[in-house]
Structure formats: structure tokens, C-alpha cells
């Protein structure tokens, strides 16, 4: 097995080069804004750009709204299907996987035709309506991840016993959901939430085609007009993705500890 280990090591090294060089290259490039020496000028320009603050703030608010909407729709549904309608489970699962089958650009094309100013529900006629449509679009894109995360969380707890116990103490459905089920699947919800955040914060296609001032279109605009700032933006975006995924890992490790204690 000696030679096998050598080949494995060699291949792993090559893979490291392919995956790490673009990261190093981006970091190096982002520091090159001043001629002849490394500087943080590109970051200063990006962080000092009011457009950066507006667009990333907008995308941040939108991702929070998406997470809230996603949890509000999916958590009660997944709970209800587990408790009362197991027959419906394949249907719900199929629907939540559809966004992986239908490309986002096709979904947003449908939105534009369905909700334009001359349609029965002219959401695109106002900016508030467009924002709402964009949030719904993002919630749709995150359906597969959010549903899977929450359903995995529900599988780990005894839904029917918890519900009966709460009911016998006189709790209504809203109380059961808010005070019994949600706290018990909080870790699962958080991992779904961070994944959603990572998807939404830099999303381009939906935001661009619905004409919303989000971070994704801003990055593309920067890419067409500046030299070093896009690399700085890529570093920021990568840090955001990395932080989101890191937090998911952290929370899932945390949840393993709490489960081991039971």
C-alpha cells in the first residue's frame, strides 16, 4: 500500500493547488491596487463606497426576510406532515426538490410573465411588490435546503409524544409550534438559515432580472468597471460563505453534544 499512499498524496496535493491557488490569487490581486506595493486600497474603496453599503444592506435584509418566510412556511408544514399527513410526504418532498430541477432563470422568467404590471397580480408594478416577489423567489430557491434541514431536525425528536404532552397541558397549536417544536429543532433551523443566507447574499440572476439593487448585481457592475475591487469583493463574499458554513458545522457539532446527553 506504500505506492498507493504516494499516489493518493500526490493527487491530493494537486487538488490542493487547484482549490487553493484561486483563493491565494484573489487575495494577492485584491492587495495590488497601489502600484509597486501591497495595500488595502481596494478594500478601502469598496468599504467606502456607499453603493456597497446599500446593496449589501439590502441583500442582508432580504436574506433575513427569506429565512423568516422560509421557516414560517416550512416548519409548520414539515411538522404537520410528520404528525398528521404522512401520506402527503412524497408530494411535499417532491415539491421541495423542484427548485433543484427547474433552473432559477426559468423560475424568474415565469415570475416576470405572471406578475408583470398588466397581470392579475401586478407585484412588479411597485418596488415593495418586487421586493416581496424577490423574497418569495429566494424562499423558493432555498426550499430544498430548508426543508431537508428542518425535516432532519424533526426526525431526531419524538414529535407525537411532545405534541401529546403539550396538548395534555392545554397548549394550542401555536403554542406547541412556538414553545415546544421550534426550540427543539433550533439547531436544524439555524443550519438551514445559514445555508439560505449564503445562497441569497450574493445571488445574481433573480435580483438582476427583477431589477432590484442587490449585492449580486453590484458585484457584476464592479466587475465590469473596476480592476482590483472585484477581487476584494470576492474575498469578502468568500469570507461570508466560509463563515456561514463554519457556523453550520459548529452548530451541528453542538447539537450532537446535546443529543448525546439525552
Amino acid at each position, binding site marked *: *500500500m506504500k505506492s*498507493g*499512499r504516494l*499516489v*493518493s*498524496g500526490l*493527487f*491530493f496535493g494537486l*487538488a490542493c493547488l*487547484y*482549490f487553493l*491557488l*484561486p483563493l491565494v*490569487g*484573489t487575495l494577492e*490581486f485584491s492587495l495590488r491596487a497601489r502600484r509597486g506595493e501591497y495595500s488595502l486600497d481596494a478594500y478601502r474603496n469598496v468599504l467606502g463606497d456607499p453603493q456597497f453599503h446599500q446593496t449589501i444592506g439590502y441583500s442582508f435584509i432580504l436574506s433575513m426576510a427569506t429565512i423568516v418566510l422560509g421557516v414560517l*412556511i416550512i416548519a*409548520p*408544514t414539515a411538522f404537520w*406532515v410528520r404528525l*398528521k*399527513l404522512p401520506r*402527503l410526504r412524497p408530494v411535499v418532498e417532491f*415539491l421541495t426538490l*423542484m*427548485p*433543484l*430541477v*427547474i*433552473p432559477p*432563470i*426559468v*423560475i*424568474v*422568467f*415565469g*415570475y416576470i*410573465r*405572471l406578475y408583470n404590471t398588466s397581470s392579475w397580480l401586478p407585484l412588479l408594478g411597485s418596488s415593495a411588490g418586487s421586493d416581496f416577489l424577490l423574497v*418569495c423567489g429566494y424562499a*423558493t430557491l432555498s*426550499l430544498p435546503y430548508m426543508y431537508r434541514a428542518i425535516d432532519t431536525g424533526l426526525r431526531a425528536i419524538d414529535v*407525537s409524544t411532545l405534541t*401529546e404532552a403539550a396538548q395534555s397541558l392545554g397548549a394550542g397549536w401555536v403554542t406547541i409550534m412556538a414553545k415546544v417544536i421550534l426550540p427543539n429543532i433550533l439547531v436544524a433551523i439555524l443550519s438551514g438559515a445559514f445555508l439560505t443566507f*449564503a*445562497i441569497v447574499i450574493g*445571488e*445574481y*440572476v433573480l435580483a438582476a*432580472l427583477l431589477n432590484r439593487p442587490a449585492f*449580486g448585481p453590484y*458585484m*457584476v457592475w464592479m*466587475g465590469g468597471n473596476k480592476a482590483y475591487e*472585484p*477581487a476584494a469583493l*470576492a474575498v469578502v463574499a468568500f469570507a461570508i*460563505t466560509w463563515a456561514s*458554513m463554519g457556523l453550520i*458545522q459548529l452548530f451541528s457539532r453542538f447539537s450532537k453534544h446535546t443529543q448525546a446527553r439525552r
Partner: protein
Amino acid sequence: MPLAPDRPASRLLVWLGVVPFLAFALLFLILPTLQVVTGAFRTPDGAVTLQNLRGLLTPSILHALALSLKLSLLTAALGCVLGLLLAAAVTRGGLPDWLRGATMTFSGVASNFAGVPLAFAFIATLGRLGLITVILRDWFGINLMATGFNLISFPGLALAYLYFQIPLMVLIITPALDGLRKEWREAAESLGASGAQYWRMVALPVLWPSLLGTFALLFANAFGAVATAMALTGSSLSILPIILFAQIRGDVLQDPHLGYAVAFAMIFFTGIANLIYVTLRARAERWQK
């Protein structure tokens, strides 16, 4: 354990619980998709027609479709092979255990690192002033552009796509590799099989449905992606989703219903790919129990 008495009225109430979800899915998933699909088969006046689909056969759209298929098939195939090798290296290659955890975590990040920033990263690395380009020029006297390599082209885009395709493969195939039991290897070896024979006659046939299924998933993943290509090549490389993007923005095909047909073609291909994925995954899971 029926919690509510099983009267017809309460049964109706039970169904009420899923109404918000179904309404949401109807409004923001099903109806928009149906709009596109039915639009592909209708004239602007609403009559049923196949003319739009025939419109797909124009040279520019056929060219874009061929380019998209080529890009998706190539990056899916390379992603599968390289991802399998990487997964095999960290799970079975005798490398230190912590490398496996690090690779899985990194794959989780990289498979989500698609879109605009990925394009920027490759421009900063292999673009005209990118790190590798400059190092090759200054240290080795190699002019990368003169060798015929151009990042803003088909090979450049494929190279960028592999950055999320390989990690996705690693994430999906590692559990399948874990499902290969040690006993099978030992049994093969005790019968005199070499390492290569074990892979060819035992491991690969068991992994085959997983591999093919993941190939289909990677294909769909690449086929629907727009943002990376958009940010990397502008619109100089007309793959199918970029044509659709331009059509939605400014009706470049000068026929709204041809846009529907292009969108329908995209659903058609990603739909077939996902159907293959789901079917084969069910078969693959038999071995993972």
C-alpha cells in the same frame, strides 16, 4: 395514535394545515413553471402551436444548446472522475484522518462558492494580470496567452465550473465510498484479486449507480448556472442560459414565445438529468444499508 377524532370535518381541518405551503408552492413554483411550459406551445394569440419549438432549430440557438450541453457534460464527467479520485484519496488512500474532515468541510464551502465571486477569483488568478499568469511570465518566461489559453473562453469557463463540480461530487460520493465494506476487499484479496481488479470487478460495479446518478446531478447543476458565466465572459460565450437571460432583459430573439421555448428546453434537459439521478440514487442506496 389519532390525536383528533376522525370526523369528516376535522379531516378537512387536517388538510388545512398544509394549505399555506401548497399555496406558496403553487404561486411561486408551479404556476410560473406552467406559464413557461404552456407558453412554449402557444402563439401570442393563445393558439396551440409547435412553431416555437421549431424556432429552437435556428443556428444560433442550436449552437448555444450544443455549447451548453458540451460544457455541462464535460464538467460533469471531469467533476465525477476527479471528485471520485479525491474522495478515494482521502477516504482510502492511507492519508491522515484529519485531511478527510478538512476536505469535507472545504467541499461544503466550495460547492456553495459559485456565481459572481467565483468568476472574479479566476480572473484574479488566470486572467491577463492574474497571479499565475504573472508568475509564469516573470519567473519562467512563459506567456500564458501566447500558449493559446484564454480564461474568457470555453476551457476557462469549464475550469471555473469544476471549482464547484468536484466538491459537490466529493460530498455526494464519500458516503457511497464508506458503504464499500472492508469484507468485500478482503474477500477479493483472499481470492487473489489485485487492487486494480478489486476496483474494476467489485467496487466500481457497486458504485456505478451512484456515479451515474451524481453525473446527472452535476450535469443539471452546470446546465442551469448563469451567474459564473455571465461574470466571467460577459455575454461573449453564448451558452443557453445566457441567451435566455438576454432574451428576458431585452427580447434579443425578437419573439417572446421563442424565449418560452428556450426556457422549456432548459427544463427538459435538467428534468431528464434529475429523473436519472433520482432513479439511480434509489438503486445505489440498496448497497448503503
